[in-house]
């Protein structure tokens, strides 16, 4: 006659993957904007990007915060994770770090405007660590859900950091190219970062695939769902457009100094960074629908 089904799924819709993408991108943009003040050396080539970078990070942070608040069923209570802080919840830590990250960006922007190098270094170092914590906590937010095997994977936070490095670097390359400031030094620096992050992403993508193929029943069900519902986004956009295409550009030695192609690789990598997260967030919650 019938089977009684109920669909109390974790309804994390488009707001969450977009938030994860934007806040991770904001983090890496900030790291690169603060790099001349924090690291010096080769990163000094990014000195002209300092103000643009911190301003971009602020804009991305504001959009991310609005997305995060709008996604809540009770938006007016958005400060509760800090007011009623629960130390075992990654969301509580994320909310706290998000606030502190915003303070650091504002401080760094102010220091850049007033040429206060001491304040720039302090906010640069602390802010960069907080920037790293943004993709890290979003990955942890998924990883701690032992009930969802696709997410309960220690590589997820590492993957999210790597994807943020790619998308942030891609956006920085695009902004600098559009402003006409893509020097050879900047191109080489951004190419090295992109090559590293996209290579790690490929390794983690393959690891995911193996887990899908050889994993538990739930992981195999997730793999079937990925192919059925998100095959285009997973195989074409993420793997082909977002990982293999940028790698093909970045690996050729004679293209190392080609600013346009390095920027293109960054943009493609950023697109893949978005879809990879999107597929993980969506597919990870769907095997639970019939539990």
């Amino acid at each position, binding site marked *: 006659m019938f089977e009684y089904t109920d669909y*109390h799924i974790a309804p994390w819709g*488009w707001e969450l993957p977009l938030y994860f993408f934007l806040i991770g991108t904001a983090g890496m943009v900030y790291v690169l904007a603060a790099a001349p003040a924090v690291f010096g050396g080769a990163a000094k080539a990014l000195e002209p990007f300092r103000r643009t970078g911190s301003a971009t990070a602020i804009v991305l942070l504001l959009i991310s915060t609005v997305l995060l608040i709008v996604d809540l069923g009770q938006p007016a*209570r958005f400060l*509760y994770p800090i007011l009623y802080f629960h130390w075992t919840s990654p969301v509580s830590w994320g909310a706290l770090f998000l606030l502190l990250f915003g303070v650091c960006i504002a401080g760094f922007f102010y220091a850049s405007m007033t040429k206060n190098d001491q304040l720039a270094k302090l906010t640069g170092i602390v802010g960069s660590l907080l920037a790293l914590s943004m993709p890290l906590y979003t990955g942890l937010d998924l990883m701690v859900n032992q009930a969802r095997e696709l997410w309960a994977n220690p590589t997820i936070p590492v993957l999210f950091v790597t994807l943020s490095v790619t998308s942030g670097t891609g956006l920085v390359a695009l902004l600098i190219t559009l402003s006409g400031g893509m020097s050879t030094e900047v191109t080489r620096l951004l190419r090295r970062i992109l090559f590293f992050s996209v290579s790690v992403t490929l390794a983690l993508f393959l690891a995911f695939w193996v887990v899908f193929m050889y994993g538990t029943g739930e992981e195999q069900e997730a793999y079937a769902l990925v192919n059925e519902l998100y095959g285009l986004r997973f195989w074409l956009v993420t793997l082909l457009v977002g990982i293999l295409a940028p790698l093909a550009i970045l690996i050729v030695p004679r293209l190392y100094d080609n600013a346009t192609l390095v920027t293109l690789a960054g943009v493609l990598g950023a697109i893949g960074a978005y879809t990879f997260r999107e597929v993980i967030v969506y597919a990870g919650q769907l095997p639970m629908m019939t539990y």
Partner: protein
Amino acid sequence: MPIGLQAEPSLGVPGKKRYAMVVDLRRCIGCMACVTACKAEYDVPLGVWRTTVRVKDTGVYPNTRRHFMPRLCNHCDNPPCVRNCPTEATYKHEDGFVLQRYERCIACRTCIAACPYNARHILPGNRASVKIGGVVDKCTFCDHRVAQGLLPACVQTCLGRSRIFGDLNDPDSEVAKLVATHFTVTLKPEKGTKPQVYYIRPERTTTEQAYSAPTSYAARSDAEAFYRHNKGSRFYAGVL
């Protein structure tokens, strides 16, 4: 050692209570009185449930059988929903209840993601008679009734006495005796949640039902209608 809980696991701890439920599947006739009683007790809106009875038909006529599987919050002794809640809106009571503070819930749905039993849902925000809405809700083991010395509504109404409720730490309680003398299983113990709903004599078909997609025509129609109705709506946009 469990972390992030407001009360330590109390199962087997002398001097403490550990409320639990035993579901004797030999006695369940699938009348759905428990679901109805629960809906009435809490004005549970259409489309969501605190408790359900899942039904599965197996075999081919004339060799067929219908199986019933009552489901509810397992009030775990090590609940991951509590650990992951960013505001401590969901918390563990010292007697074992896993409860929800509506006034603190921000409906981030982290607890729904954490629950291995699909036991949580979001209350619609525009309810007519009850003003609690836009927050996560779940079975409470009827803690307000238990505090008055009554049984949970679903247990009280169960005409086959399939659902039995009590303090598992009390060796004289009916639940303790049933768990001690019968073959019982809990759902997904491998998740480390220490679930406190014990099933007597489950069949493979019913426990696997928890892991399998609906197969009958009616269930598929139900699923497709759900997809159609919720596709693109708030909380489901993008996923479905």
